[in-house]
């Protein structure tokens, strides 16, 4: 069972704003789903399945970067070629 507090914490970790009034509903659904997931407890922890598809590489050859006007085309928050982001302190 996870509590509303747990769900609020997860929302913080996921940087998802959950409104206070939504919390109870989210928590209830969360617990129903987690209960269902409990079936996985019956699964033996086996070894990881191998794959032959390994070592997929590209060569160290310079390719074109995006043209300047396209880099910042999808945001209004820009300044002197930089993206403008919220403050970090």
């Amino acid at each position: 069972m996870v509590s509303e507090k747990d769900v609020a914490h997860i929302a913080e970790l996921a940087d998802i704003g959950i409104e206070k009034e939504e919390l109870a509903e989210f928590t209830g659904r969360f617990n129903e789903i987690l209960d269902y997931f409990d079936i996985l407890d019956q699964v033996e922890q086996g070894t990881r399945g191998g794959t032959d598809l390994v070592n997929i590489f590209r060569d160290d050859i310079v390719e074109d970067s995006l043209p300047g006007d396209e880099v910042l085309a999808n945001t209004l928050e820009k300044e002197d070629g930089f993206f403008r982001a919220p403050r970090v302190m």
Partner: protein
Amino acid sequence: MATLTFTRDDRYNAFITMLDNAETGPGKLSGIGIAIKDNISTRGIQTTCASRILEGYLPPYDAHVVTLVKKAGAGIVGKTNMDEFGMGTTTENSAFGPTKNPADTSRVPGGSSGGSAAAVASGMVRMALGTDTGGSIRCPAAFCGIVGHKPTYGRVSRYGLVAYANSLEQIGPMARTVSDISLLMEVLTGYDPRDSTSVNCPYAHIPDPDIRGLKIGVPEEYFGEGVDPRVASVVWDGISLLERKGADIITCRMPSMAYALAAYYVTCTSEASSNLARFDGVRYGPPADTRQTWHESFQERRRDGFGTEVKRRIMLGTFALSSGYYGKYYAKAQAARQQVRNDFLRLFREVDVIAGPTMPTVAFRIGEKTDPLSMYLSDILTVPANLAGIPAISVPCGTSEGLPVGLQIMGPHFRDERVIDVAYAFEQGVSR
């Protein structure tokens, strides 16, 4: 270059973006109008994934498959509606409103590629691209009465597909006939170095309806609890038809089905929680409020930008990966996933393909399913193919309560040709 004429009457809300005109050129798909699911990047054409958080986003590049269909001469008609980021089974979870099922407008078209299915079923386009993470091509194909194929994982490049659950999803064709599915497969497949999971296995095949001597496995679990007996009955009729065409029907068991759905939802939500972290408003999409601290700003942007189901899945995945729970959820899900793969590998030593219903029921009424878990449970028959990475097709096989039912055929890895042959045989059998 010629301009295609197409109907702009989108009465089922199949499209998020409709283009003013569609250019078509020479090639295998010359003169064919095609719809593209809105989670596939199209250069200069809004690509939203049916989410507010990507409203107005204009990709500066084309997805690999978009380049391929353009090169084959198809005319892109528009971008189709879907469940936000592919998270849903009904196309109700769209920021742009639900799509209606052309077979019955009070019903959902299925999801998440519901817009593509409705666009094809209604005749607005001849073909569409969908994406299938846990059944998102096959479910709407079944609900709308068209054909939809999820290719073998790696056969179609994912470059440009906005990721929901990378290890599970494939882009695939949706059309009214198996021949068109086959035609589109020729265009979509092939190696793309930009996708490290891409496999060099081009599809060059003409469907062959001769299935004499083919062994078809029918797992008991595909007709078990939760499967509507009326749907089961229609599908059994379909399987009988295949038997009449010379196939051997062998009932079998798939014990890992018990864990498949949980394994699927743990895996896809875990991957999604990470994939969707990039939507913070800094580089694209409606901008972040830069007057706040980054944490407040990201939270607000994501709170306003994501719908409820997307938030739920991001949180489920965040939880499943968090320290102390990783072993219980994510790691166990991977072990269960391996069991599903092993089950299929074992079965495919005995049978050539596996058949069963695509969905346990017919299309739901719009608004009928409000409980997320019961919605998830309706994916039980489609997710095993994604967990194993095997090809799976849904082909219309009659109706129940007047609504379309889909027959699902699954095959071994890289045997898309075989499942398409069986679907073709079935389609030919029905129409004669």
